[in-house]
């Protein structure tokens, strides 16, 4: 295979340069995803993303240069691969060829006329001329027409320096426009500035349809079209609406492909073109998109999705593409602060003073209440290196294992369930794998909102014909969208996941659809037999479970048959699986189903947990859980402890520590008094807010390290400034186990990067750590974690990203796991009895609340609320079915009271048939909404992951729309007081 290089020059690669073949060993395989330069635009997409044996390439001649390309490659793409750039306007390699601009005309020996090179497939022996006088004249004529209806304000145009129209005018040698500029034109077309991030200036539009096609092909929203005909043709969002009123989701795909200034980022209009770019990794969801941070000096002026990014393949969403302004928001706190109690104003101090204050308090607490009375929480929003340091600080400097991470409250059941069944706490696939999937089963996930870039890739595959099973109480967008429709939407009752998954398995066994051969070969047969007997029991049949789940038995039978026999079946799941009292059982049930049908260990299949935050996988990998050291090795193992004790020079506690929920319980009891929280906001994100607040008020030393004064920081005694992902070096690990570099593009506003702050605190605690750069932290991680053994910054720079396990056995990483055998050896079928949650509807609380996310906001909203993304979602609302609303006299937009046994809050109602009767839904992006005032302290039996997805509630109309709940009033008062403490 050709060596991959980010800066590969197609002119110098051996496969297309016959004369250089002698210098470099002839490769055997051509892989379009690794052998081409992601910085180049090849005009049309690769005909296949699969590697092609060199022997199967076809050979053609372009301007006398011989080039070998995979069958189906366009002449335009072949030319670009040979280093010959054919002029083009409507073509770009993220979109299928369109053939409208007529600029890419060429001549082909033996053929008539001037075919468009973008729509003409290359053929064996073809002889192409891309340049001669005739072609040049035609191109000039085409450009002349375009320019006759285009404002000639190039010098003051926002696209100056980044305009393909301008470039092409230069390339074709346009020198005058014979038609003049006085004829009919579009120069007065009105500019649409409704979107907060980009403008649409139709006067500059050449109607190349790139934006329309990007919205269809890349994003899959179909918000744009060309309205009218002929001269009147124009790009139309929705039905000739402003962008903000249309279905546009502001992913930026249209802006990305626009060859002119028609679709321009407002930041570029304001500030001008960037002077340099740095490739980094998005700090939002678990997709982990690669972006170019486009810079002017040390200011980010734009984020553009990087085509070389293996997770996103050049696509983006409204968060990663546009919502980066929070990094320099005025609310950033850039000085360390301390205070004796939370009823006092903050005092700005030096880092040294803050570290000493914090360390003295922690030491004092441990002296008074015991070694176990303090702990720490790592963040899934921080880098692997930072997370590793916090857990190291807790284990080495605090001397206990009281470290946990926010994955506790989202994907801890994934870790437990997949470790038990497969032997590794991680998803099994790459995102690319979806391109080979025939049947997708999406359970408790809403990818088009929470993992939008991957959601778009799913939709693309669905438009190609893959089948879809959606298992969700709500009608998520995937159920019925443009050119995407679920074959089965299994609308289950919240809390009945395990009944559902057992019924699926029951049908497969009952109907003899299981993959007997692979089970016998790859799985623990004894355990399988026990499980088979268990699952065959009638109580798991869909006819029986229908009474709990509400899913018609016939639908489950049909869906089970499709999953078992439809080809490559893949399960994608989210927090609708894990955040239940049986989250771990459900994950194991999913794993059972994949093993049962041999949908594991190759492309197109697998078990794919969609991770909520950018580094959920990484924070778990780095030993953030209280029972295990980095690499998921239990703390009780003497051999593993020995390695770490030797490297860290301390004796480690062999007992598991407290999990977040246990820490809070102990704090309420008064036995747990000190907590170091890095980059998390447990006061907003954790369930049963009353309980969390009581625990936090009981702390004698709460140290919060964050970029903003978040809700938790309002209860803190020490505030240490955090740094955004733009201000530090490090790595994030996404949902496909992909370790990607995060690169520092600006200095930390608080002077220190997060990792340096942890070093300072640790030193003050008496445990000094020595690192000059995060790369040295990664070197230590690699030396102590077998699955990371071959990971280093040098390798990441060279490869772009690496998927763990990456060690001597898999030197280039592991895209697909469990290929020949499971990590644990034989796959284990775990028994998953359906145990109904204790959270049941009652006369007092007759409905079920389930919670989730929305596209424009991210998690607790600390970042996205400080951007224009709030234009889409300025407040959390309660989604309620029209029947339930009518019963309660609730109209759309009415203020309602949402109450559970844990508390109550007031929200506005959104009446929508997306909900099923009896089930309501809200998000938790705004702290004043108090969604978690409602959620309870029920949790998963194995991991204590909270049951956010099932809360018995009552909804009633509030007479006075201005009235807040008691908690909301107290919250507002407390917030006002705490903000005032900042200004003293």
């Amino acid at each position, binding site marked *: 295979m050709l060596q991959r290089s980010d800066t590969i020059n197609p002119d110098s690669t051996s496969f297309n340069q016959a004369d250089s073949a002698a210098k470099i060993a002839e490769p055997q395989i051509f892989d379009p995803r690794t052998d081409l330069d992601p910085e180049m635009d090849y005009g049309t997409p690769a005909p296949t993303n699969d590697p092609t044996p060199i022997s199967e390439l076809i050979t053609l001649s372009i301007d006398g240069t011989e080039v070998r390309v995979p069958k189906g490659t366009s002449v335009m793409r072949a030319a670009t691969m040979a280093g010959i750039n054919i002029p083009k306007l409507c073509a770009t390699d993220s979109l299928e060829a369109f053939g409208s601009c007529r600029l890419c005309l060429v001549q082909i020996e033996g053929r008539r006329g001037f075919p468009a090179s973008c729509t003409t497939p290359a053929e064996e022996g073809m002889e192409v001329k891309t340049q001669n006088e005739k072609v040049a004249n035609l191109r000039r004529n085409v450009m002349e027409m375009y320019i006759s209806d285009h404002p000639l304000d190039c010098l003051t145009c926002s696209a100056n320096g980044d305009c393909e129209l301008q470039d092409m005018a230069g390339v074709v040698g346009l020198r005058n426009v014979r038609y003049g500029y006085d004829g009919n034109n579009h120069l007065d077309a009105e500019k649409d500035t409704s979107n907060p991030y980009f403008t649409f200036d139709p006067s500059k539009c050449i109607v190349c349809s790139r934006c329309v096609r990007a919205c269809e092909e890349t994003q899959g929203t179909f918000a744009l079209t060309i309205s009218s005909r002929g001269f009147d043709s124009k790009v139309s969002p929705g039905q000739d609406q402003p962008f903000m009123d249309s279905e546009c989701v502001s992913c930026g795909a249209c802006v990305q492909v626009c060859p002119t200034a028609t679709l321009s980022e407002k930041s570029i209009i304001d500030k001008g073109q960037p002077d340099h770019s740095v490739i980094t990794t998005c700090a939002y969801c678990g997709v982990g998109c690669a972006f170019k941070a486009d810079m002017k000096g040390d200011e980010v002026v734009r984020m553009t999705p990087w085509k070389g990014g293996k997770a996103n393949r050049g696509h983006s969403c409204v968060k990663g593409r546009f919502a980066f302004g929070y990094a320099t928001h005025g609310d950033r706190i850039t000085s360390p602060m301390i205070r004796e109690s939370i009823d006092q104003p903050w005092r700005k101090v030096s880092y040294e003073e803050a570290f000493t204050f914090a360390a003295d308090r922690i030491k004092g607490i441990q002296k008074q209440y015991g070694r176990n009375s303090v702990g720490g929480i790592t963040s899934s929003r921080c880098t692997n290196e930072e997370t590793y340091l916090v857990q190291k600080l807790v284990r080495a400097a605090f001397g206990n294992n009281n470290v946990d991470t926010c994955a506790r409250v989202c994907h801890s059941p994934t870790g437990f369930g997949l470790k038990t069944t497969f032997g590794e706490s991680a998803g099994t696939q790459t995102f690319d794998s979806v391109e080979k999937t025939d049947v997708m089963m999406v359970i408790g996930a809403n990818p088009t909102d929470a993992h939008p870039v991957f959601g778009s890739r799913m939709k693309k595959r669905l438009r190609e014909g893959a089948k879809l099973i959606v298992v969700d109480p709500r009608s998520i967008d995937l159920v019925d969208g443009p050119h995407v429709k679920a074959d089965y939407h299994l609308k289950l009752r919240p809390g009945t996941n395990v009944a559902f998954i057992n019924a699926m398995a029951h049908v497969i066994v009952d109907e003899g659809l299981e993959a007997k051969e692979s089970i016998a070969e790859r799985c623990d047969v004894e355990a399988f037999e026990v499980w088979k007997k268990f699952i065959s029991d009638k109580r798991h049949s869909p006819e029986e479970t229908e009474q709990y789940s509400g899913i018609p038995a016939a639908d489950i039978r049909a869906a089970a048959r499709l999953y078992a026999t439809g080809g490559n079946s893949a399960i994608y799941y989210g927090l609708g699986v894990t955040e239940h009292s049986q989250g771990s059982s459900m994950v194991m049930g999913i794993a059972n189903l994949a093993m049962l049908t041999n949908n594991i260990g190759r492309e197109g299949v697998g078990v794919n947990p969609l991770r909520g935050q950018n580094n959920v996988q990484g924070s778990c990998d780095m030993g953030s859980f209280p029972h295990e050291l980095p690499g998921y090795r239990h703390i009780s193992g003497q051999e593993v402890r020995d390695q770490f004790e030797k490297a860290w020079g301390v004796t480690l506690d062999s*007992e598991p520590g*407290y999990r977040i929920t246990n820490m809070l319980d102990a704090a309420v009891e008064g*036995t747990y008094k000190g907590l170091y929280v890095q980059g998390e906001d447990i006061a907003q994100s954790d369930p049963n807010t009353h309980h969390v607040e009581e625990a936090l008020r009981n702390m004698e030393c709460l140290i919060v390290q964050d970029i903003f004064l978040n809700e938790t920081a309002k209860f803190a005694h020490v505030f240490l400034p955090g740094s955004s992902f733009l201000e530090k070096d490090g790595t994030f690990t996404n949902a496909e186990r992909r370790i990607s570099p995060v690169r520092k593009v600006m200095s930390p506003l608080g002077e220190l990067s997060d990792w340096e702050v942890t070093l300072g605190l640790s030193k003050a605690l008496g445990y000094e750590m020595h690192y000059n750069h995060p790369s040295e932290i990664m070197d230590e991680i690699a030396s102590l974690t077998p699955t990371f053994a071959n990971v280093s910054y040098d390798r990441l720079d060279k490869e772009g990203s690496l998927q763990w396990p990456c060690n001597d056995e898999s030197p280039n990483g592991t895209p697909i796991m469990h290929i020949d055998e499971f990590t644990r050896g034989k796959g284990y079928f775990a028994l998953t009895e359906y145990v109904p949650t204790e959270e049941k509807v009652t006369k007092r609380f007759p409905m079920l609340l389930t919670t989730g996310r929305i596209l424009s906001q991210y998690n607790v909203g600390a970042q996205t609320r400080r951007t224009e993304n709030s234009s889409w979602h300025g407040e959390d609302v309660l989604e309620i079915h029209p029947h339930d609303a009518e019963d309660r006299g609730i109209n759309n937009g009415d203020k309602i009271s949402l109450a559970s046994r844990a508390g109550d809050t007031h929200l506005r109602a959104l009446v929508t048939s997306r909900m099923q009767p009896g089930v309501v839904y809200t998000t938790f992006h705004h702290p004043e909404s108090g969604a978690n005032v409602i959620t309870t302290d029920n949790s998963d039996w194995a991991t204590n992951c909270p049951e956010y997805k099932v809360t018995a509630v009552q909804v009633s109309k509030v007479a006075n729309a201005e009235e807040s709940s008691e908690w909301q009033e107290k919250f507002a008062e407390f917030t006002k007081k705490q903000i005032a403490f900042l200004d003293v």
Partner: protein
Amino acid sequence: MSTNELGHLIKMANQIASNIGVGVSEEDAVDRVVTHISMFWARPMREKVCANIETSADELNPTATKALKQIRAKL
């Protein structure tokens, strides 16, 4: 709603027993609960619930009770 630590620990022990104690013999069920709690619960949590086995007899299910007694013996 029980929000005290002991109440939570009892509920958690019962939940574990109901979930991993199914489909196996009583002896295996107890073993599994013992292993799970020993692997995932902090020592102070084990100590607290084990000190209250008798006083919480009405609330603990039989498998959980047996498992906690075994855990107590090893503390």
